[in-house]
């Protein structure tokens, strides 16, 4: 007994230490961001920083409002494109898909999830951009970025909502059938409502993926600094803004980019707060 306890102590400490690694880095990242970002926000002025519409660092104008708006627009567009397709795919996978097709569909989705974002970006640049240019005259725009991000969030939305749908007890579906509903109607009006919170969680995860995506968006969004005027106008999101200017920035310019990262972090925190609210409801 005593020997057993002796061996258990260090191992417990080891596991605890391993668990602490992620916490340690989250805290470290937050501390670093706040320490270099908050003074910059103070210097620029929170209000001027968040609501300023002109970004011209060499003349001391640091307004990130266009990029904030850009992130919101592009993410909303991605949800509009990705969620209907994703949820319907999940329904198909969870209920109606024949085994032969599932054998094809499952690896395809996993492959889509594992594709590096630079490859999505390149695909967007050489395929999607000329296509939207020809069809809608949009080219690099909110539209193109939304389409691409919509595709990129598909695996997240599909896998999380499919597992939510599979978790609904079989009796819900069968009960609806017994009441005379068609298989489709049983699915849409009894199983999906039961899996609502899981599907919401899938959407929120998709949102956070879309907000955080950088590389692919940078290649298809056009990255202009103007306030976006419509769905066909070029747009810069918060993440691409940081990535695009970091290379040459120095002084307050650099600190203002870190401050942008703080804003992004707050945005992500809000999203995760929403997610935990949804989970609690469940």
């Amino acid at each position: 007994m005593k020997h057993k306890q002796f061996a258990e102590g260090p191992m417990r400490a080891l596991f605890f230490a391993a668990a602490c690694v992620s916490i340690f880095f989250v805290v470290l990242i937050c501390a670093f961001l706040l320490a270099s970002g908050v003074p910059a926000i103070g210097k620029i002025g929170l209000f001027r920083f968040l609501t300023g519409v002109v970004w011209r660092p060499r003349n001391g104008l640091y307004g990130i409002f266009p990029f904030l708006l850009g992130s919101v627009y592009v993410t909303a567009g991605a949800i509009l494109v990705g969620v209907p397709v994703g949820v319907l795919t999940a329904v198909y996978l969870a209920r109606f898909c024949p085994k032969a097709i599932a054998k094809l569909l499952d690896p395809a989705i996993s492959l889509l999830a594992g594709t590096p974002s630079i490859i999505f970006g390149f695909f967007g640049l050489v395929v999607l951009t000329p296509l939207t240019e020809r069809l809608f005259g949009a080219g690099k725009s909110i539209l193109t970025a939304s389409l691409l991000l919509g595709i990129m969030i598909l695996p997240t939305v599909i896998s999380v909502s499919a597992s939510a749908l599979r978790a609904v007890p079989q009796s819900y579906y069968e009960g609806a059938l017994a009441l005379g509903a068609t298989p489709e109607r049983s699915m849409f009006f009894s199983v999906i409502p039961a899996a609502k919170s899981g599907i919401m969680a899938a959407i929120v995860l998709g949102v956070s993926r879309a907000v955080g995506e950088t590389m692919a968006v940078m290649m298809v969004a056009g990255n202009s600094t103007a306030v976006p005027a419509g769905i066909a106008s070029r747009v810069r999101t918060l993440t691409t803004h940081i990535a695009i200017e970091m290379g040459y920035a120095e002084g307050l310019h650099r600190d203002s980019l870190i401050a942008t990262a703080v804003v992004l972090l707050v945005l992500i925190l809000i999203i995760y707060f929403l997610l935990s609210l949804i989970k609690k409801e469940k």
Partner: protein
Amino acid sequence: MKKMQFTQRPKALLALLAVFAFLAATLAGCGGNGANSNDIHVLSREDGSGTRSAFVELFGVEAQDSSGEKVDRTIDTAEITNNTAVMMVTVQGDAKAIGYISLGSLNGSVKALPIGGVAASAATVRDNSYPICRPFNVVTKGDPLQVLSPAANDFYLYIISSNAKAEVDGNGYVSMDSSAEYESKGAAGKVTVSGSSSVSPLMEKLIEAYNKINPNVSVELQTSDSSTGISDTLSGACDIGMASRALKEGELSQGAAETTIAMDGIAVIVNPANTIAGLTKEQVRDIYTGDITSWDELG
């Protein structure tokens, strides 16, 4: 049965209808204004890039405002990229685009426009007739022949020799006059070169060619930007710095010295299908400040 379903879910149905209506409306709207307009799609580099600052300065896009402050007047709806490759692929795929890149990166996928009737090429940069060019410098802390380590000195002598000249010209840049032939004195050791990402591709070629002659010196290339290269040189973090611009007052006063190893033109590029034959400096400026917005205005 069908009717019941509709009345049961009026909200969901309405939302779905609204989404479709929205999509249809936006798509129709975009199709309407995109089909026949001949708007210029302006591409630029990110704020702070060496290529961008050279471009806005040389074309007069940058101007002093009423308070005497220099303002980069590049139109804010311009598409921004931090990557020459993306710039070229975009121009290649977009018949209405205009952009600019280093002459050394130019290839057949895009069309370089003559500026003021002078074609952009190594030859016109050399005879000073092409007006848009900038120096590629190597930076040392003091007189390079005195302060460098034996290995670094050996590499430096190669860079400024007539042997390197062929390498520079062969890669689309414009070499400086040099008559001294490089001769290896058998130096060995390690050299660190750091700085501008514009100079870096050329430096890479130079290192490759140099190691064929003298494999005993290993040259480590670190790519960042001009400012970093210069401050690394001053702090001693590297032996030789690379800068795609002339040194500033503050850097000279700290003892930095520059040697121009090549000149690089900046080419204004358009899609190969674009029928325009050339632009003047003023037209390029007006395009980038947003005073000219349509290809039709340029005839």
